[in-house]
């Protein structure tokens, strides 16, 4: 179960990063914090390699900025191809989620029988 959940989150992490960068640029810690708030508890050892890969692929672009913090920060933003890829991934996710939702809906009664309801006696 943990492995499936981990895989699921791993699979969705890239889309989550692209969606977070959709509106504006962000730096590493900012992304980590936002992902944590979205339910993606990832570590630095996971997010930074992912950002480097996406940058190498040209999905995102990175630039060092020395701002108010006084030390340089690496900001990431979506590129044009990153926008296209994010849109594609959203479509695919929507189809996938719809398919799963449909399966869940079809088997609702079965699931309700298996999963105990709140307050229901065993």
């Amino acid at each position, binding site marked *: 179960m943990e492995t499936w959940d981990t895989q699921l989150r791993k699979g969705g992490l890239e889309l989550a990063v692209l969606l977070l960068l959709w509106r504006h640029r962000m730096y*590493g810690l900012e992304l980590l914090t936002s992902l944590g708030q979205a339910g993606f508890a990832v570590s630095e050892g996971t997010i930074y390699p992912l950002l480097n890969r996406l940058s190498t692929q040209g999905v995102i672009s990175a630039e060092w900025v020395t701002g108010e913090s006084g030390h340089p920060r690496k900001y990431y933003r979506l590129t044009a191809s990153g926008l296209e890829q994010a849109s594609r991934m959203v479509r695919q996710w929507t189809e996938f989620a719809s398919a799963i939702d449909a399966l869940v809906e079809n088997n609702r009664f079965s699931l309700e029988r298996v999963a105990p309801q709140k307050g229901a006696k065993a």
Partner: protein
Amino acid sequence: MQPESHVLLREFNRRLRAALKDAPNHVRVEATLEVESHVQDVLSRGRGTEPEPEQVACILAGFGTPEEYASALTSQLPEAASATVMSGVKDMLTAGTDLVHGSGRLILAIGRQAFALIESAVRSAVAGARWALPRLVMAADAVRGPLWSARDLVVAGGRHAGVGAAHLAEKARAASAVAFRTGRSARRLGEDCAQFAGRTAGLAGRALRWTFRLLAMAALAVLALISLGVAGFAALAPDIAGFFVHAFQTEVGLFLDAIRAETIARYAPGNPAAYVQTGTAVVAGALTVAIALAGLLGFMLWSARRRRGSLTG
């Protein structure tokens, strides 16, 4: 940042760079800068209550060990490209090594072969020299005699030729001197002949002139004698002289009459007056022509005499 935090960060980055030694330089630089920037960002938020070095250690722990983080970073690089690059580099190194080895072996083989060839050539040359040297000495001895004789012959021939050439040159010089003298003689002869011819022509001219003079003088003398004779005859025998004069006048008159009649008949038949006019005109014209000719002749003679005088003068 506190010194202990710096130490932890530096150590982490040192190990991270070591683990990324095969990665491109910009990857190493970016990775260490990113770690440092992240640590500073977390510290600047100031959430933790632990001492700063412990916070830094906790942050760094989120990256995993430097080796694990480096592995995660490099595994995210385009695998095909790096593998191809590494494989290609390995292949190149292997090929280069093989090439160097092969080239070395080839050079060695060529060197050995060349050395063997040179050695064989030297041996052959030495053997050939050993065989040929005595024979060359013998041949040289055999040839030397005739050579010296030939040399003497050539020297003698040359000497004779030189003598002959000198003799010929002397002859040529003598002949040219003779020719020169002959030429000079011919020139002198020509001059002499010309002078002689000139003198002869001069003499001839002079003789001719004297001849004419003599003839003229003779003619004048004859005329004078005749005149004297006539005058004497007329003085001594007036009757006979008168008879001859009368006869002469008659003959001249008859002659003139004949001329007049002929002239009238030819140019003015039946018009004697025209004859007189014509005759007068003819006589006048003839006299004029004669006078003109005489004048011209006299002028030519005078100018010739004057020119001769200027040439000789």
